[in-house]
């Protein structure tokens, strides 16, 4: 639909409507309303369901009333004021294609006889759910609203939080057929300009049919396309985006996706939960340590168990070894087969849990694991220790706040178990070294993935393992190389001491 073959709006409203109908046929959802404006035929066209009916009715009534009052006062039609109404934002279009596009956006289009242009009325109310609680990143404390599928609503939620003219929203359209609006969000004067430039450039290079979801964008712009680890951060919490933007990061939102993608991101950010910032800061330290421990457990636990049991028995305390050996008598499979079988069964149950309706899903995953685990133990197919290890691994992976990291851990445990089955602890160690080397080589929009630990940025360590109290976080993270390095214009904001 290039501009060269654009059709001008014909002078007769009837012809214009016929044209549009011809384009859209068959189209049961195309609605029209005819009335007279200064004795001329006027037709309003809209797509059913995309507009708010009351506002449309109101708009038509206003236009007609206006027209009548003009008639009585001036005794003549005033073409300039046709279709204009104070209650609406009105745009004039001269091409039929633009009019059609406006209809797809949920606007109503008014054609009037004798005028070679159409008026679009912004009465849109696209179908969608209302703002809801965050489902994927629930917290006990803190704001309880999440993004929805409408870009306009999502931007409004951000505007509400960042009432400054420095908060910029650049939009561009991606997708040849979907024409999806994609917004780049950043804080001018804070963010490194090259970062915005880089994000813009990467987005502009995308050539696709349709942007169905944010993930399409993510896979196009991510730094290491083959990496298991997420080099972008997705969140459905507007306040998290707002604080990310204030850190000097860039957000990318897609119309129709209830998520915002933040870049750059580091490994430690993936292990920090929004909850950390809403609780007392002393709690963040143990919780973050726990999450780090849980991440490595989720990756390593089954492989360590397998290698300890099949190669390095001398490292297990004797009573534990004897009791594990006791559990293991009569199990017909080697430990590796037992581990892999159990892990696959667990993954199957987890997958079943997500596919089923929520109410059923939870019971399936919990009861299924318990019953199948218990039955398998009783039948002597799996040892109880293995059930404990595999379910502990699963639980550990559930503690990770970033979904991308959970999936990486889920996938990585399999190569680790296989390495353990061939080389024991030595193999786990080798693969671990490769993994850490890989993590160290990753970058997210120019920021090393393991920063601020490696390379070490001492100033930024205040939000890695510990979470410094808010009044202590005077500076924005140095790793993002912001233009304005201090928050609140550099004023020192110590808490006031009580007493003399």
């Amino acid at each position, binding site marked *: 639909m290039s501009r060269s073959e654009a059709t001008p709006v014909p002078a007769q409203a009837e012809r214009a409507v016929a044209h549009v109908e011809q384009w859209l046929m068959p189209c049961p959802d195309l609605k029209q309303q005819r009335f007279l404006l200064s004795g001329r035929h006027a037709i309003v066209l809209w797509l059913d369901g995309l507009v708010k009916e009351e506002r449309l009715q109101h708009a038509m009534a206003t236009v007609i009333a206006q027209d009548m009052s003009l008639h009585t006062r001036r005794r003549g039609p005033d073409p300039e004021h046709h279709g204009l109404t104070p209650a609406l934002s009105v745009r004039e279009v001269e091409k039929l294609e633009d009019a059609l596009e406006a209809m797809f956006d949920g606007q109503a289009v008014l054609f009037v006889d004798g005028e070679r242009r159409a008026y679009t009325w912004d009465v849109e109310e696209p179908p969608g759910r209302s703002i809801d609680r965050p489902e994927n990143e629930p917290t006990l404390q803190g704001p309880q609203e999440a993004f929805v599928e409408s870009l306009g609503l999502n931007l409004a939620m951000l505007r509400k939080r960042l009432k400054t003219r420095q908060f910029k929203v650049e939009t561009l359209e991606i997708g040849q057929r979907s024409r999806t609006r994609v917004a780049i969000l950043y804080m001018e004067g804070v963010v490194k300009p090259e970062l915005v430039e880089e994000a813009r450039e990467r987005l502009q290079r995308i050539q696709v049919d349709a942007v169905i979801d944010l993930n399409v964008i993510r896979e196009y712009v991510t730094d290491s396309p083959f990496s298991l680890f997420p080099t972008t951060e997705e969140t459905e919490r507007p306040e998290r985006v707002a604080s990310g933007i204030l850190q000097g990061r860039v957000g990318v939102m897609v119309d129709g996706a209830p998520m915002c993608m933040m870049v750059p991101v580091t490994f430690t950010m993936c292990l920090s939960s929004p909850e950390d910032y809403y609780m007392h800061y002393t709690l963040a330290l143990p919780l973050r340590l726990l999450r780090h421990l849980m991440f490595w457990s989720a990756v390593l636990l089954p492989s360590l168990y397998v290698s300890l*049991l099949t190669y390095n028995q001398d490292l297990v305390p004797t009573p534990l070894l004897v009791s594990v050996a006791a559990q293991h008598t009569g199990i017909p499979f080697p430990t590796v087969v037992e581990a892999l079988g159990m892990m696959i069964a667990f993954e199957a149950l987890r997958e079943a849990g997500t596919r089923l309706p929520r109410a059923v899903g939870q019971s399936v995953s919990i009861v299924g694991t318990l019953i199948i685990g218990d039955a398998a133990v009783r039948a002597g197919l799996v040892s109880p220790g293995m059930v404990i290890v595999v379910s502990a691994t699963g639980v550990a992976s559930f503690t990770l706040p970033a979904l991308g990291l959970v999936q990486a851990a889920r996938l990585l445990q399999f190569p680790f178990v296989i390495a353990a089955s061939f080389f024991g602890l030595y193999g786990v160690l080798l693969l671990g070294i490769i993994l850490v080397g890989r993590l160290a080589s990753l970058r997210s929009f120019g920021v090393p993935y393991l920063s601020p630990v490696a390379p070490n940025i001492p100033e930024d360590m205040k939000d890695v393992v510990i979470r410094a109290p808010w009044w202590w976080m005077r500076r924005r993270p140095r790793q993002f190389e912001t233009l304005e390095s201090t928050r609140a214009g550099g004023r020192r904001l110590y808490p006031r001491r009580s007493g003399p």
Partner: protein
Amino acid sequence: MTMGRNHAARGRFARLRRCAATICAVVSLSLLTAGCFDRQELEQQAFVTSIAIDKAPDGMVDCTFRIALPVNTAGGSSSTGKDPQAGTTPVTYRARSITEAMALANTSVERVLTFTHLTSVLIGEDLAREGISQQLQPLVRYREFRRTVMLAIAKGKARDFLLSDQPMLERSPARMADALVQVGDSSGLIPGDRLHDFLTALENPHEDPVASLVAVNAAVQQDPQGKSGIQGDNVSYDAGSIRRAGGNPVEWAGTAVFQGDKLVGYLNARETILLQLLRGRLRRTKLEFPDPQDPTKTVGLILRRERSPQYDIRLSDPLRVTVRVPLDVDLTSTEVKTDYTLPGNREYLERQLTHMMEQEMEALLIKLERQYRADVVPISRQGRPKFATYQQFAAYRWEEKLPDAQYQVQPDLHIRRFGVQFGPVQNRAGNLPAGNISAESSGNAVQR
């Protein structure tokens, strides 16, 4: 020009090939150091938890292995009444060495014997008297043995100990050795030395090793329920004749003293406590002394090590050894009516206790150095700072000097606490507790 380019290309190719070869070598070498050929499932192994070594005719040894027996608890086997973690009945093999016995053991044990979880090595008295360094060789060399193994000497046959050992609380015999070392560390009744300590003492010049002493109590073994009551009418600190009824037929008490690798004598449990205090290995222990006012009664003490004992060694002729043992004392029980919390009484008790302990410790040192001629404390190591070089130290004739040395032990007791009750227990007869002893005539000044 062409030649040069060819040459460069060939050079680049060679470099590439070298690089590839290096990568291949590194990868294959690093991956071939381990592999599935090393894999051993738990079901393929038999974990030996204890070895007992006894003397056999013609220079052979009888090796007894106790193997941990894993029984599946989940399969509902509790109904059989068998302890799920009990060891199997020990098996004995006669061979020329431990390693040969280990090889022979697989003729009747259907799994590969593994010694990585060995926790205790017991050696029979007869063998120990002949010297055990030869038998210890495989324990040092073979990589499955650890130096943390507990080494104990059994009075009589070591095999009998394993056969009659029925732990009272531990379900797993594997835990037994660790538990014993722990008991030794906290009570001082056995030295609790591990194989590593033994070997270190054996390899250092002039030092002599010790090992824990274990024995079968014949009286308990014959009457495990203790129906016929307790035999004997005195308190004994000797392994194998502790006065008791019922319980585990075996007991551990005292020290086996070695001269080099040969067993030369025993210390009883009380002497072991003092030895451990002199060695500085004991942090806290309980000890009873006769009451200085009435030798038929006792005072109970908890001794805590204040600092490590301090040795002052004069390399004169004869050698003079002075040991200060600073101890912190809690009074746990008194039977006489004297109120020892009064400052004068406390000092009196401290003096008397110091004197008694001094005599006991000096007697112990003289027994060790003169009678057994074994330096197990070791005093020689405390004298090392007196020498400028190691060679001088090693060349010094400690073995000749120590038996004739003059020993002076100065226990430094400080009674600091008196338990949860200060004064002595009041009788209803209206007897008031005794006043300050120093005011009375010293000696047997007990008021009744």
